[in-house]
């Protein structure tokens, strides 16, 4: 009896330790990455890094201003295409689709979500870069919007589904048409969740590299229009990190730090949105 208890306690302790270690690994990974980025790239971060264009190999004082602006343009374009389409698709999925159609759309969205980003890149390249005879911000924005649509659609659907049925019926019972009830009660009730999902989606695509290699290409200078190749943070990191120069490696780390910082800011602001304002009691 006592030996059995001893074994039980031992198993209990081992499993508890194992789960604790894994939980710690999960949390520490982020901080390890952050610390590593700061250690390697922190030195290169100064005001010029944010305001200057890249300089040639051997010179000092170069920045990634064009990549920051380029990334912002690409992500803004992707959001302009992707968020409305994803949002409305999510509304359809949650509020209008029948069982069979709903299943098909949901499943397709999940598959699209799982398509490797490099494949999305090739697709955008074939669809836009080739016919337009050149790499462009538009093609890059389109590629990223393809990734943003299913993320937004599923997040929108998920948060709309959390709006209780009684609230829908409350609006309909007052004489609201279905669309009216969705636009004035259901979507506003799910607003915070949907916005959070959108921010997280945008944060997620802003770090994608593979689709940009085929579409935005890269640019050492300010881009000269949406139909021209453009610099972007992920591609700058990729190019600098694979170059054989010490100084460029440091800049790659610094650019990584900037990118991670932006993504973290997006995440934290998403969290803040969720914790504010009216919420629906369960």
């Amino acid at each position: 009896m006592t030996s059995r208890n001893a074994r039980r306690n031992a198993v209990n302790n081992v499993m508890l330790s194992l789960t604790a270690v894994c939980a710690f690994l999960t949390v520490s990974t982020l901080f390890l990455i952050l610390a590593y980025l700061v250690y390697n790239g922190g030195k290169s971060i100064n005001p010029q890094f944010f305001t200057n264009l890249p300089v040639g190999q051997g010179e000092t004082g170069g920045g990634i201003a064009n990549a920051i602006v380029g990334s912002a343009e690409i992500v803004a374009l992707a959001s302009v295409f992707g968020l409305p389409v994803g949002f409305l698709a999510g509304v359809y999925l949650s509020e209008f689709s029948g069982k069979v159609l709903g299943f098909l759309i949901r499943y397709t969205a999940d598959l699209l979500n799982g398509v490797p980003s490099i494949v999305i890149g090739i697709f955008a390249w074939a669809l836009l870069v080739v016919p337009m005879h050149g790499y462009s911000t538009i093609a890059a924005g389109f590629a990223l919007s393809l990734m943003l649509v299913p993320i937004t659609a599923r997040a929108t659907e998920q948060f709309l589904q959390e709006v209780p049925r009684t609230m829908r019926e409350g609006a309909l019972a007052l004489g609201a048409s279905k669309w009216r009830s969705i636009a004035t009660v259901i979507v506003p009730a799910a607003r915070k969740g949907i916005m959070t999902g959108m921010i997280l989606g945008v944060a997620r695509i802003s770090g994608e590299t593979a689709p940009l290699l085929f579409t935005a290409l890269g640019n050492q200078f300010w881009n000269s229009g949406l139909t021209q190749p453009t610099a972007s943070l992920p591609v700058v990191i990729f190019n600098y990190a694979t170059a054989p120069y010490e100084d460029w490696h440091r800049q790659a780390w610094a650019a990584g730090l900037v990118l991670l910082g932006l993504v973290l800011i997006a995440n934290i602001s998403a969290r803040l949105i969720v914790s504010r304002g009216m919420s629906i009691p369960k």
Partner: protein
Amino acid sequence: MSISMNPDTMSPQPTQSHMPTARPVVTAAESAAQPTLAPSVKMKATNVDFYYGSFQALHGINLDFAANKVTALIGPSGCGKSTFLRNLNRINETLRDTRLEGDITLDGENILDKDVTEIRRRIGMVFQRPNPFPKSIFENIVYGPKINGMLRHGNAAEVVEQSLRRAALWDEVKDKLHESAYALSGGQQQRLCIARALAVNPEVLLLDEPCSALDPIATAKIEDLLFVLKQSCTIVIVTHSMQQAARVADSTGFFLLGKLIEHDKTDIIFKNPAKKETEDYITGRFG
């Protein structure tokens, strides 16, 4: 057997048996032609069958709702009383895979032939649990008038005050109209939902177990309210509580297994029901 719900045709058996045999028995048609004797019928359900998928939840319900009266629907859980109530404003249509057969009329017009949003404006509903929108108290009240195009310039505040007064909530909330509706207690939220329903001037008010989530004091307030509201509305209330039906209802219908067993004046249902099932339920032998 067929169950007619017109209070006249359902006049207690003894009255008819004591009539002189020489005198012809008064038919339903004749008594309906005497409006002074019969309270006017606001809503009428005729042979209503209802199906969830292949499951038939209601079997041939015939029931009249007298204008400006409170009609209570009682019965054990799952007997179909809520399902029936939810057909009266066609809110069951929003559920997938359901089917309604039979006729339901409002002022003699079949509600199934009319525009559903108009029907739901004229027939208000209050639900089992308070379901205020995640908006302010003020916005909750003006929601209905706004979507139905009933607001004239500058009368929103007036509509809000009037509706809250009718729901006996004005004094408690007049200083916090622009706060979240969720800041109110459960009983206040339910009266807010009643006020919200009243804001579109419904002719009929359906209440689906409106007090089941409330304490006795909040329940008493809502019951008191019904006595006042029936002056301007026809009220149908589904309730789990027989005591509540006895307190508030002019007539009561007893449902069992998707059928309407009996409908009569409330004191007859509780003191001298015609059907054995009703008596068993009332006296607590089952349910």
